[in-house]
Each structure stands twice: as structure tokens, then as C-alpha cells.
């Protein structure tokens, strides 16, 4: 099973941390520091596997991938395939990329709970739930539709109608397709904006 998923930036700040086995808060921070200490001392072009037994206990393996300013780290035990975990990191990053269009560190920072929602659709209680980023995306979209509270939804609707009307006034005809598109493409982003 997967024991933890961490996203750290290159300064060692945690950007996302999820432990599937109970760890007290102090221990979590210590583990994050340990992981970072190991990662930042690794040169480029070496394998993505690190011995994690010294800080995560016996039978722990660590796989990481480095993207721009972020380290994506999975810690898991021998019941998982190392190479598959590497692919799973890829799936996670791809999904985030599709969600945020060119995901960057800031997206992760400011959309903390969304990232958690994405992660929960991929890994469930330490087990792999879904490996297709399209499927994950579908689920996320559904969830974000639900997340639109009626009030916000109305506001968006109102806004869109005004826009459409303006356009219609200008061009002389009503374009309904634009209206549906603008809601479908962006709903997830309205959801947390209001928190």
C-alpha cells in the first residue's frame, strides 16, 4: 500500500502532504524534512528511487519525480511495483496539468483542497483507485458541478446571460453554445474562489 504522498518545492516547503498511515503532526514534519534532505542532495540523472527505510521504517520505498520547482514523492511498501508508482506520479501530474492548464507551483498552493480532491480520486486509503486521467477528470468535473452552491451558480448564470446578451445585441443573434461552454470549462475554478 501507499504510505504517503508528498509534494515539496525545491526549498523544502510542503505543498501537499497526505499520510495514509497515522503519523503525529511533529513526526509528519520531521519526515518531510528528512525526505527533502535526501532529495535535494541527489544529483541529476540518477534513479528515482531512494532507500526510505531509515526514516519510514522497514519495507518502505520512496519514488520521486522532479518537475520544475516541485518534487512529487510517493512512499509505499513492497506490495507495490516501483515502476508502476513512477507511472502513477505521471498520472497525478498529468491530471493536475489538465485541470489547471499548465500546472505550476502557485496553482498547487492556492488550490490546496482541489488538489486533495484530485488525489482522492487517484489514491484511496493507500490503494490505487483510478489510473486513467480522463476518468479522474470526469469525476472531478462532476464533483465540482455539485460544489457550485445555488447562489454562486446563479451568479455565474447571471453573468453569463449578461455576456451572452451583450454579444447577442452586438451581433444581432443569440449564441447559446458559448454559454454552456463557459460553464463547463471553468466550474471547478469558481467553486473554491468564493471560500
Amino acid at each position, binding site marked *: 500500500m501507499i504510505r504517503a504522498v508528498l509534494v515539496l518545492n525545491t526549498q523544502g516547503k510542503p505543498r501537499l502532504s497526505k499520510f*495514509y498511515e497515522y503519523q503525529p503532526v511533529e513526526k509528519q514534519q520531521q519526515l518531510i524534512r528528512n525526505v527533502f534532505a535526501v532529495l535535494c542532495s541527489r544529483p541529476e540523472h540518477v534513479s528515482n528511487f531512494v532507500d526510505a527505510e531509515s526514516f519510514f521504517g522497514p519495507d518502505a520505498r520512496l519514488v520521486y519525480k522532479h518537475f520544475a520547482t516541485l518534487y512529487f514523492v510517493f512512499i509505499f511498501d513492497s506490495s507495490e511495483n516501483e515502476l508502476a508508482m513512477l507511472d502513477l506520479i505521471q498520472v497525478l501530474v498529468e491530471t493536475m496539468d489538465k485541470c489547471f492548464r499548465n500546472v505550476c507551483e502557485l496553482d498547487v498552493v492556492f488550490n490546496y*483542497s482541489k488538489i486533495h480532491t484530485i488525489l482522492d480520486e487517484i489514491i484511496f486509503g493507500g490503494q490505487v483507485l483510478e489510473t*486513467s486521467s480522463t476518468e479522474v477528470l470526469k469525476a472531478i468535473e462532476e464533483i465540482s458541478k*455539485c460544489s457550485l452552491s445555488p447562489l454562486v451558480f446563479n451568479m455565474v448564470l447571471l453573468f453569463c446571460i449578461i455576456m451572452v446578451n451583450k454579444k447577442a445585441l452586438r451581433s444581432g443573434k443569440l449564441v447559446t453554445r458559448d454559454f454552456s461552454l463557459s460553464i463547463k470549462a471553468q466550474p471547478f475554478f469558481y467553486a473554491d474562489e468564493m471560500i
Partner: protein
Amino acid sequence: MNPFSSGTRLRDMIRAIRACKTAAEERAVVRKECAAIRDSINANDHDYRHRNLAKLMFIHMLGYPTHFGQMECLKLIASPGFPEKRIGYLGLMLLLDERQEVLMLVTNSVKQDLNHTNQYIVGLALCALGNICSAEMARDLAPEVERLLQFRDPNIRKKAALCSIRIIKKVPDLAENFINPATSLLREKHHGVLIAGVQLCADLCKTSTEALEHIRKKCTDGLVRTLKDLANSPYSPEYDIAGITDPFLHIRLLKLLRVLGEGDADASDSMNDILAQVATKTESNKVAGNAILYECVQTIMSIEDNGGLRVLAINILGRFLSNRDNNIRYVALNMLMRAVTADAQAVQRHRATILECVKDSDASIRKRALELVYVLVNETNVKPLAKELIDYLEVSDPDFRGDLTEKICSIVAKFSPEKIWYIDQMLKVLSEAGNFVKDEVWYALIVVISNASELHGYTVRALYRAFQTSAEQETLVRVTVWCIGEYGDMLVNNVGMLDIEDPITVTESDAVDVIEIAIKRHASDLTTKAMALVALLKLSSRFPSCSERIREIVVQFKGNLVLELQQRAIEFNSVIAKHQNIRSTLVERMPVLDEATFVGRRAGSLPGTASTPTVPSVSIPNGVVKPVAPLVDLLDLSSDDVPAPSSSGGDLLQDLLGVDMSGASQQSGTGQASKSGKDVLLDLLSIGSPSAPSSSSTVDILSSNTSNKAPASPLDDLSSLSLSSRETSNAAPMMDLLDSFSPSPPTENNGPVYPSVTAFESSSLKLTFNFSKQPGNPQTTSIQATFTNLSPNTYTDFVFQAAVPKFLQLHLDPASNNTLPGNGSITQTLRVTNNQHGKKSLVMRIRIAYKINGKDALEEGQISNFPRDL
């Protein structure tokens, strides 16, 4: 709810935290936010509840305490709207864990949500349950989850399947309820659900043998068919990673097949074909393809034996090793490590590739490869392998050298076909990486050199040559110094020349030069310098022409700040200057070190050959740190000849004393003085350790070696002899004999001797105590307890316990053995500190527990017959 009202938004808080320049600033911001959130919680503010929780989650990630928000999670979960519930469940998973009591309160809400009409809310509840479910919750909610396994929406089905894994892990008894729904999941077409179902089955098999049998019987064929369909399936874009159809499902299926095939020949047989197909057909130029191959290899290695498949598997791993991708090489090495036990022969074929991996640029690959090479070494291939490794030592990373050196030494010591090869290889290692060599290793080398009498000349010449190029390697210097001290004459006279050697000309002063360089080198540590002093003393007798020069070097150390060196220098100086007649006998070549004793002791102290624990060391008051216990005798031997571990040590001492007797009587002419001379020499010889324990440790070693007759050891006699002589002799001749030897009168060197007592005796067991004291510390008594088995039965699990009153402090060292053979004996050392020394004498209550033929036996007693004044 107006989102733009008072209180900062989550986004603003994150911005504020990110803007902080220092950790203190960040703490201040977080503290302010936490205070605001607490206020809001106390005011029971509904509108901002989920915003507060979202903030708390962020704060939690940064590592600040957030327990005060736990109840808010429960309130949010209980609220009707989806956004609130979403944040609530997220908070529940992050801020709470299964150990908290609060969790019990949430069970009811979760139960309601599991039955909710909105499938997304059901999904949230399942997700939370799968992450933090406790055993109680598992029992309460298992029926709901079981029902959801047949839910219409695939997203819920797969979540329910994974949630079931958590439930059966928490409460294994529930496993049987899930067997039927789980097997029906295996017929799913939806990949996500299928993965979850396969995973659930694998976990069921692990928790319950009943499930394992059931699934093995009913589902093996179906799984094989599924895997076949998957492997042959045309391109399906959704689950495709780099052109390979759903590697994750492949891997899960292979894993489940592994569980089913392990220990069952029929099941293994039915999956052979598909495994062979996957192993041969899968493309290996992508990470995803290699992941499948890797899993396939693991499955092949675990299921019941099929020779052909295993060779195929190991060949796949061999191919992995030459892959350019570091990750692939890494997993291949990991896997080969496990495969070695199954089929060493097949792995041996890839030795050359593995050896290449030792030289990899990636540290973790190097480490794995080295471990693997270490396992692969045997008598037939040790020569080329060791050569490769030693060659690589020259260019290796400094970080890696320690590991590499240790492994090479271990390989060379374990498999060396002949002594000369061993010595050659060790010299190479010492000159390349002498600073990384552990103490035991060079001790062992010295023992081997000392035993190879026909190679003494060859070795000392080779060392001399090596020293010229690599004088910066500490251990090489030590071995060289020791060998030149012992066999310096062979170096100069080219004795025992082998055919393979180039002749060299070394003069006597060249040899002394080497020692002088070693002793004057700033980097040399105390041990090296002390060894060099002893070597000089020895050379002074072997090369009379250099005697005066040697004396000058020795004299320079008379004022050394380190007591050990100072004392040696003073004593050696007086030996060189005044005792010409005994010197040559005093510094005779060392008797051959007993290889068996050393190896035996090393094996005793080193449980595994690969591991080399550090030598325990004690610091003696003047700052001299010496390795103790198993190797103390060797060090002493190399420096001062006294505590020889073999019986020849006694003879040597007798010789020495005989010589001394005549020498001393010539000087003083009285019988009494001759006795005192003996005493002085004894002191002189125990210089290795400035305070007396040298002799007592000798007794320890001797008695543990010759188990039964401990008190009768010759050295013990000697020390008591010297003691009785001291009482009669006066101090004057002694001072005369060693006039430069002023600072501590040698009379202090040996403590008073106490008679040994029989502390305890029963029909089956006898316990005797021998006492000794450290001089200058009268309160502490060191007691050597000898347990003698009076019956022919073997006692196992032998445990000795002792209790003392409050004014005493007791320290027990481990016993020499916990099995007491019939009529045999074991020893154990106790140290007792008497805080009321002189007022009260020792008392002790003891308990001895052991097993005779598996039956417990217990003996207890009180000991009050200790000698007074302890």
C-alpha cells in the same frame, strides 16, 4: 452568505503566509489566523465554517497544531450541502485519525451519507471511511459498504471495493462476507472497478485462507483469461500509458496471480502460458512496459517452480541491467538480489553486467550492485572479481569507498585461496584506501602475516615499497611499522626472496627512516606513534649500528604530552641505554599469533561476516583511548609482549624472567633485589596500559580461553609472586634500576590481592568469585564470577542475577556464554562500587536460573563471605 464579508479569505491568508520572510513572521501570521478561527468557532459562525476549515487544513500542512478544528469537521459533515460536506470530509481525513474518540461521533453521519441519494456524497463518505476507518466503525458500517459494491455507478463500486480492503484489514473476521461480492467484481469490464476488485481479492487472500482457497479454485482461470484479453487487446486510449494498455491492471492481475500461484502447483501450471506470453511479448523500451515485465518476473520467481520460465525471467533482468534508464537497473538489481537464492547459477551468468553496475554513477545503484556482487562471490571467481573491485577502488567516489573497502576486505578474507594472494590484495587495499579499513581487518592481516613464516621477508619488502608511495594511509603505516619492527632484518638482508620479486636494496637506516617518518607525521594518531616506538625499540636491538640514532628519536618523546607515549619513551630509553644485555632477548620476534584463537574470537564478536561492528573502546584517564575486549591482547602483543593469548606467552615470560634474574642479580647481588627486579620488569612490561588492568585483563582472557583452570594461569602466579616479593623488598634498588622512572612509584601499579571465595555451592552448581581492584579507586571491586557445572547435564538459558543493598552499586557484564556445558564453566564479570568503603563490607543476594533439558531450575542464595575491605 456573502463571500466578500469580513475575515480574510483563504487565498489572502495563503498570500500573507507566502509573503513572510522569516519563520517568526510566519508563526505570527498563523497565530493571528488561528485566533480569528477560534473566535469564529466560539461564536458558532455557520457562514465561515468551511472557510475556517480550509484555512486550518493549510495551517495543518505547515505543521501547526489544529486540533481545535476537529469538532468543526463533524459539524460540516452533518450539514446538508455538498460543498460543506466536501470540506468537512477533507478535514476529517487530514485533521483526525482513527485513534481519536471524536471519530465515534461521526459514525452516524457517515452512515447517513452512505445511504444518501446523491452519489457524490456517497463517494465522499466512502473516501473518508477508506482513509480513517477504525475497527468499531468498520463493524458498524460494513453492511453499507457491502451493499455499495453492487451500486450502479462504477465510481462508487470501485471506491466501495477499496473501502472494503480497509474494513477487512481492520476486522479480519468480516472477510468472509466480502468473498462473494469481491469475486463478482472480477467479471467487471470497467478498468477502474476491475483494478479495485483485483486489489480487494488480493487482500482477501492475504487475510483469510478460506478466501484464498475459494478464489484459487473459482477464479484463477477467469483471471488468466482477463489477463490474456488485456495483453492482446487493441489500443484503448483511456487506459493507455505510452502505448501500453493499462499497465496498472496488468500489474494488479500479475500480483493476484502470484498470490494464487504461490504454493499451489495446479494454479501455477494454469498460468504458465500467459506468463510466458507477457514476458516475451511486452515491449521493453518504455517504463510502463518494463513495469509489467518486472512484475511478471516477480510472479514467475514466486510461483511454483518452472525451470524454463525462471531462466526467461532472469534473462529479462539481465537485459534490464544494460538498460540506459537508471530506474530499470535499480529494480533489476533489487530483483536479482532476491533471485540469487532461487537460482544462483543463472544470476552468475550476468556477473559481468552486475560488476559494471558497481561502477555506476548513481550511488543507490552502486550500493545495490555491490551487495549483489558480494553475494555472488565464491572460491572460483574471487580472483577476477576482487581484482576488478580493487582496480575500481582507485577511481571510486570517496563516499563509496568505505562500503567498497569493507566488502573487498570481507571477500578477500573469506575466499582467499592462498596466503600470498591474501596479503597482496590486502596491501593493495591498504595503499588505496587504508583510511577506510576497519581495525579488525588489519589486526587480521597482522595475524596472517605472522603465521606465514615463509612470506615474512616478501611481506615486509612489499610493505616498504607501498609505504614509499602511500604513506598517508594510516592503517598501511601501522602494518608497515609493525612488520618492520618484527622483520626489519629480513628487509635489509633480502631474506626469503621469492622468484616474483624485484630485488631492492634497503639499508638499516632506510628502515629506521620509515619508522621515523611514521612517528613524526602529524596525521599519525596515538596508536601509530606508540607502535612506532615499540618498532624502534625492536630495531635498536636488530640494527646495533643505528642504536644511537634510534635513542635520539626515542628521547624526543620523553616530554610528550600524552602520558602513554611519554612513559614508553622513558622506559625504552632506559632499556636502550642501560640494559644492553637483556635487550636482545626482551625484543625477540613475537611468537606466532594463534590464528585459530583470533578467528574464533572474531567470529564470536562478529555475528555476521558481512557486518563489522565497531570495536568498543574505553578511555583511560589520561586520554589514551584503546580498543578493548576481544582485541586487547593483539594490541598489547604488538606493543609490549606481555599478554600472549597462547600458552607460548607463559613460556616467553619465563624466558624473560630468567634473563632478568641474572641481569638484576649482577647489578644488586642480593636475592631480594633479584625478586624486586622481576617486579620492575613486570611493571615495565605492562606499560601498554599505564594503570594495572593489563594484568587483570590478561587473566580474563586466559581464563576465558582455558575455561576450567582459570585461577591456575601462569600469569596469575606471576603477579602474586611479584606481590609477595614487594612486601620484602625495599624501594631503593628499584629506583636505582630505573632512575628516570620517577613520576609514579611502581608499587601502586598492582592492587592488593584478595583470596578468591566460593560464593555458592549446590549439588549441581558451584560459583567462585575472584576479586581485583583498580589502583586509585579502592571503592570499586571487579569480581570475576566463575560458574562451574558439577553435573554432566548441559544447562541452557543460564541467567545470573544479583541484588545488593543501597550502599553498593552493581554493574553486571554479559556472561561469556548462556549455555553451561556438563562439567564445564562460564565466567561473568561484575563490578561493585562500595559507597561506604571501609565501613561496611560487601553482601549480595543472588539468583541463578537455568534450564536442564528444557526444565526450569532456580537457585538462590546470599553471599556474605566476601573478604573484608572490599
